[in-house]
């Protein structure tokens, strides 16, 4: 249901009507405060008494050719217009301008008084009426064109193009960040993206007015996408009907998105199943797996170097699905060409090389991956990523081992992940750290660590103390370095560490206890990342 | 180059003189006590001011502003007896000349009165042929018994023949020694009012001649070769020869010169002028350099005339106005005026050691006035009384200004007069309040900058020729009249055009009044 709570009336204002020129050479002689009133209809009269019928928002056009100079009769008509809630009074062909008494009355009534000359008063009124009805007629025509067109388009992009054509203005599909997901790029102010259809005076990031309509993909779920059409200043006249058109289009877009999502999920499930075959080396013989890989366009020929990306933060499988193509493009741009397979918490992928790569090339691949990831998570600040890269190895078995290594590397990268930016580790640079993998993978240790930290978490709702402890330990117990990294005073760090030490009852000057505590902190951080991706 | 002018103003107490150079700059000013005759005072002021002028030979014009004739009427002194002849019979017999005059003035001024056949209809046709025999007989009756004759005639502003012919006949009958005033030369439409003005004019001829001759002689004796003028009610000039004949046209020149002078000294052409005296306050308005004139009938010495006098609104508010019921206990309920101690303010006011609370005391206590009286003497006045009186003053002055203004556009206000200190600095609808510097010579300065004028007041038929043609003809006539009055032709401009449509007249009859003025020709 499109709720047009903020949509304006679909009628013209006096100002627009005057500017249109249909009323001839007009002059607002008084009551200019009323020019922003809506005009619903035009009536013509040549009578000047209080009984002339005036309905709400009606513009009264008076044949003034028989008016005496400075006539009281205009006062009476003005009153009738005011009392009937009329939009204003146009006096046509009066032999002399309205007198001061009449002008002052129009000011008092805040009723627009306009003088005009027109050779054919009735023709003028008819033209004005036609113009007033035009928005409704125009909307009907646009709606018809939209509905016909929608029967022939099958993609989101085509639907957007159709809406853009009907409205005469480009239309985009944006996500919550305001970035365009489909359709032309136009920076949108994310604050205007809400639950309702609106015409917002500052929908564009540059302060342009625009129409915004949420796209409901799954009823009941909050909107994740919006149709946005940026307007220029003179577009008020069509915006009312435009919003309704967007509403209709949003259903079509929503339907396309649901369909695309279902298809994407199905494909992803197939890919994931195959990947599990690759990694697991289960019942299927390698030849069969390779054949199936070929149907997806995958290859494990030559030297294969795998990577694994883990996402954390406000992220879910749908987000992964939607962003797979974008990430794929980013990887391509970064120089990494190869399959990319959606997982619930990220992606796996690999590249194939004809020759065995030099060991010195390992950091290069990690760097390329980081560039792509940094780009991917740049705009939604709520998402973090870390990744691991496996060593190159040959053929399908090589792919298998490289994939395993990439996951190990990713796990370790996650343990030491920074607050911002992607951390990418190559298995080869981990060295001794791999010893820790056993620990990190142990559920028992995880429970111990969690129980041990419980007293600290109880007094540390926002995680400040834990974060301070982590940085302090990483800085080799240097309060000065930790303070610089955290952007606080050294004494603050010392105070916090003292609180941690007393809360946890540990002695940080004892190397044994310090090592244990660091392990516990790492483990906890891994766990937290795991929790956040639990779906 | 004769590019200097001298302006002289004869006031009640002082006679001021000012010499003005090109562009209206004040070259010299002087003050002397007014003498009863008033020539002595004029002479003293002129001599003093000319002593300060290095090039007396550059003096080309002398302008005199005097309230002497006005005072003669008000004080009923030195007035001549006048024979009154009206050319209008058989019309107008229902109201005889001097019908509504104050008895004392009538006794002094009015001699034989007669309404004879003559005069004109609105369309210029004669009411009756002029009864020349009756005019002669009237002349015979007047000869030897009166000093002057006033002749009025129905519709003479539009048709002058009968008055001119009557003047000839009277001259034949009484000799050229008999002064004759003709109504079309001194007044506009409105027979009774014009007749009154003509009678007053005739009765002032001797007084005026003395002043005018005295002025002329003073100039001659001072060795000044100048053209001499007097200023009229409307702030324009007439030559001394005209002043000899039309002295009544000077009776309202006092306030006019004061307003024009004060504003010109401040460089303003459009302003309100407030003159706060000891007893009363007058507010007038200057539009395009001239006072707006009143549409209502103006009484001079109790006689109704139709002079176009400055439109002044007066109110009983002055430095000597008495403040009653000063609050004890401070509820601030007071009554101000309308009585005033007048010029006795210098002895009776509390700040001067007297025991009457006046607005001057209030002004001093409220910090509006300095240099008058002893402020400490007013310390006993309740602050609530001061505040209430100041509120009253500000309210009244604001109302006066509001009434005078012709539009909502804010105008500057010139505050003049001995009580000008009472005028607040901020008044609604007034852009700024100015207390002009050279104010002591404002009247004389006003006289010095007076211009020559001509006017027309006639009934036109807009159907006979178009409205535009009629107005054009009236404008041309007014301009010609201004040039005849001494204005430089190139500088003549129309300052007012008024049309009063005539009811019942199907031919589009309209009374048109046009005035043109211009600087006097060099």
């Amino acid at each position, binding site marked *: 249901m499109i709720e047009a709570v903020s949509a304006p009336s679909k009628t013209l204002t006096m100002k627009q009507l005057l500017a249109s020129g249909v009323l001839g050479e007009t002059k607002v002689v008084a009551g200019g405060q009323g020019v922003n009133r809506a005009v619903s209809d035009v009536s013509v009269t040549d009578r*000047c*008494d*209080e009984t002339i019928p005036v309905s709400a928002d009606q513009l009264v056009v008076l044949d003034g050719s028989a008016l005496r*100079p*400075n006539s*009281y*009769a205009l*006062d*009476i*008509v*003005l*009153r*009738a217009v005011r009392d009937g809630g009329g939009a204003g009074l146009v006096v046509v062909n009066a032999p002399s301008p309205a*007198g*001061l*008494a009449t002008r*002052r*009355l129009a*000011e*008092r*009534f805040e009723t627009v008084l306009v003088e005009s000359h027109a050779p054919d008063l009735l023709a003028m009124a008819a033209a004005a009426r036609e113009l007033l009805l035009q928005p409704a007629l125009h909307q009907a025509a646009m709606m018809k064109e939209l509905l016909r067109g929608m029967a022939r388009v099958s993609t989101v992009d085509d639907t957007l193009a159709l809406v853009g054509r009907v409205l005469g203005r480009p239309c985009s599909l944006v996500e919550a960040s305001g970035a365009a997901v489909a359709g032309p790029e136009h920076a949108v102010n994310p604050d205007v993206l809400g639950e309702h259809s609106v015409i917002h005076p500052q929908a564009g990031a540059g302060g342009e007015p625009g129409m915004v309509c949420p796209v409901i993909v799954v009823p009941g779920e909050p909107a994740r996408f919006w149709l946005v059409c940026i307007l220029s200043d003179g577009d008020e006249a069509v915006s009312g009907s435009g919003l309704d058109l967007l509403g209709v289009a949003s259903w079509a877009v929503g339907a396309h998105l649901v369909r695309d999502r279902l298809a994407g999920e199905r494909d992803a499930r197939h890919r994931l199943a195959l990947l599990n075959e690759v990694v697991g080396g289960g019942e299927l013989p390698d030849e069969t797996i390779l054949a199936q890989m070929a149907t997806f366009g995958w290859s494990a020929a030559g030297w294969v170097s795998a990577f694994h990306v883990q996402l954390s933060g406000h992220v879910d499988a749908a987000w992964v699905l939607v962003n797979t193509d974008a990430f794929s493009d980013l990887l391509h741009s970064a120089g990494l060409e190869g399959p990319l397979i959606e997982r619930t918490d990220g992606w796996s992928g690999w590249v194939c090389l004809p020759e065995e790569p030099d060991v010195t090339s390992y950091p290069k691949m990690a760097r390329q991956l980081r560039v792509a990831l940094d780009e991917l998570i740049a705009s939604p600040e709520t998402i973090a990523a870390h990744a691991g890269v496996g060593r190159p190895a040959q053929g399908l078995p090589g792919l298998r081992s490289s994939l395993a290594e990439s996951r190990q590397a990713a796990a370790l990268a996650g343990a030491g992940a920074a607050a911002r930016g992607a951390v990418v580790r190559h298995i080869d640079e981990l060295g001794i750290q791999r010893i820790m993998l056993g620990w990190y993978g142990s559920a028992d240790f995880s429970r111990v660590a969690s129980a041990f930290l419980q007293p600290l978490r109880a007094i540390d709702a926002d995680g400040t103390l834990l974060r301070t402890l982590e940085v302090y330990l990483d800085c080799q117990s240097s309060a000065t370095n930790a303070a610089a990294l955290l952007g606080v005073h050294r004494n603050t760090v010392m105070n916090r560490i003292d609180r941690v030490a007393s809360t946890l009852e540990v002695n940080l000057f004892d190397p044994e206890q310090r090592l244990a505590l660091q392990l516990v902190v790492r483990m906890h951080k891994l766990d937290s990342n795991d929790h956040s991706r639990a779906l | 180059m004769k590019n200097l002018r001298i302006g002289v103003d004869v006031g009640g107490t002082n006679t001021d003189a000012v010499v003005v150079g090109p562009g209206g700059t004040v070259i010299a000013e002087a003050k002397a006590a007014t003498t009863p005759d008033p020539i002595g005072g004029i002479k003293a002021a002129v001599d003093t001011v000319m002593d300060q002028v290095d090039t007396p030979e550059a003096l080309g014009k002398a302008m005199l502003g005097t309230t002497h004739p006005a005072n003669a009427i008000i004080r009923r002194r030195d007035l001549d007896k006048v024979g009154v002849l009206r050319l*209008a*019979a*058989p*019309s*107008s*017999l*229902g*109201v*005889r000349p001097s*019908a509504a005059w104050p008895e004392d003035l009538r006794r002094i001024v009015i001699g034989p009165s007669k309404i004879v056949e003559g005069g004109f209809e*609105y369309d210029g046709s004669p*009411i*009756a042929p002029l009864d020349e025999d009756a005019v002669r007989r009237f002349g015979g009756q007047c000869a030897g018994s009166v000093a002057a004759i006033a002749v009025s005639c*129905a*519709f003479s502003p539009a048709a002058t023949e009968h008055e001119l012919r009557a003047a000839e006949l009277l001259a034949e009958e009484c000799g050229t020694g008999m002064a004759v005033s003709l109504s079309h030369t001194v007044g506009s*439409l*409105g*027979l*009774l009012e014009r007749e009154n003005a003509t009678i007053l004019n005739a009765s002032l001829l001797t007084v005026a001649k003395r002043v005018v001759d005295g002025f002329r002689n003073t100039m001659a004796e001072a060795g000044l070769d100048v053209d001499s003028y007097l200023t009229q009610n409307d702030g324009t000039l007439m030559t001394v020869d005209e002043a000899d004949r039309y002295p009544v046209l000077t009776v309202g020149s006092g306030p006019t010169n004061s307003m024009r002078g004060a504003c010109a000294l401040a460089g303003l052409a459009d302003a309100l002028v407030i003159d706060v005296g000891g007893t009363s306050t007058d507010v007038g308005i200057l539009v395009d350099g001239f006072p707006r004139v009143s*549409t*209502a009938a103006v009484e001079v010495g109790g006689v109704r005339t139709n002079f176009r006098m400055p439109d002044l609104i007066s109110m009983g508010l002055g430095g000597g106005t008495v403040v009653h019921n000063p609050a004890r206990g401070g509820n601030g309920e007071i009554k101000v005026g309308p009585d005033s101690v007048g010029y006795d303010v210098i002895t009776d006011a509390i700040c001067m050691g007297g025991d009457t609370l006046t607005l001057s005391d209030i002004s001093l206590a409220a910090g509006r006035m300095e240099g008058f009286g002893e402020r400490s003497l007013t310390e006993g006045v309740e602050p609530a009384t001061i505040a209430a009186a100041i509120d009253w003053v500000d309210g009244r002055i604001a*109302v006066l200004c*509001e*009434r*005078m203004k*012709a*539009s*909502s556009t804010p105008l500057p206000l010139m505050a003049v007069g001995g009580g000008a200190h009472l005028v607040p600095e901020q008044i609604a609808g007034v852009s700024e309040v100015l207390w002009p510097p050279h104010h002591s010579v404002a009247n004389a300065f006003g006289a010095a900058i007076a211009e020559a004028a001509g006017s027309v007041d006639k009934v036109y038929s807009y159907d006979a020729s178009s409205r535009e043609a009629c107005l054009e003809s009236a404008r041309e006539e007014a301009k010609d009249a201004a040039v005849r009055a001494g204005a430089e032709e190139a500088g003549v401009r129309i300052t007012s055009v008024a049309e*009063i*449509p*005539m*009811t*019942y*007249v*199907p031919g*589009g*009859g*309209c*009374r048109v009044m046009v005035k043109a003025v211009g600087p006097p020709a060099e």
Partner: protein
Amino acid sequence: MRELTIDDIDDLAMGATLLGTGGGGDPYVGKLLVKQAIEDYGPAQVVTVDELPVEGLIMTTAIIGAPTVILEKIPAGTEFRSGIGALAAYLGSDPVALMPIEVGGVNTLVPIATAVEMGVPIVDADGMRRAFPQIEMTVFTLHGLKAAPMSIADEKGNMCVFEANTNQIAESLARAAVVQLGLANAISCYPMTVADVRRGGIHGSMTYCTEVGRRLSQVQRGAPGAWDELLAYTEAALVFSGKVIDIDRRTTEGFARGTVVLEHLDDSTRTLRVEIQNENLIAFEDGEAVVTVPDLLCLLDHESADPITTEGLAFGQRLDVLAMPCAPEWHRDGMFDLVGPRAFGYDIDYVDGWKGRR
């Protein structure tokens, strides 16, 4: 029978100015005419119709013409007598008394001067108790009384007597004659018997006018309570106090038409439009008539309480607008057609919502 004093005449003239509602001619000349007549012929006697014989003839006289012309062509006095004489000769009967047609404006006083000169009393009654621009606009017309036969006379002995079918035709004939005779003439119309006047006149209007004038003079002198006294006596209401912000004068069809706009002294968004045709006729506020003819619409100087005539209106004047009920004799069949707003070309209804207000 009562004698008019000089003080009465001043009060009467003041009242006549107010009842003239801006027009009706300046009573000043009329006052001078009366004073001179009393000076020359003795005092004026005022009678009520009850003091006169029922079959006696009552005649009227008035100035008809253009106010601006009358300023120059002061009446001779003779024109009124000759007009009455001509009509009396036509009717074959002399009047037992004179009566004003309109008590309001200059014609309140003119017949007094003539009555004094003729040595007949003046009747304390009239046909309008205000001023109207046309001859047929009298309560006499509502009673079916005829304006004709009537006479127009000038001061030179020119005169005409004519019959007219309707009082409207009488008006057009009179107007045509006046243009030919110099625009300042005497008219005598509505010759009636005492019984007719008793049946169809407004009684006590001279007394009313004098009392109104006396009370107004007291207001002008600042007498305590005088204003309330005036309002109470006239049953008037103060409908507006404002400043003149626009005067639009124009002459059409022989009438001085005009529109004056007042801005309220306390609320500058409020304006009052006063429509004038020789007299003040209708006041509009907020596009609605608030006072209409035949009720009286008087403009008084806010400070001095001087009645302001149409000619005397000036920009910036501060005015009080007073509504006064017309004489009750007007309220009968035919009033709206004869003197209601539509009779003056205003397509609106008579209103009396202001009555009872203060």
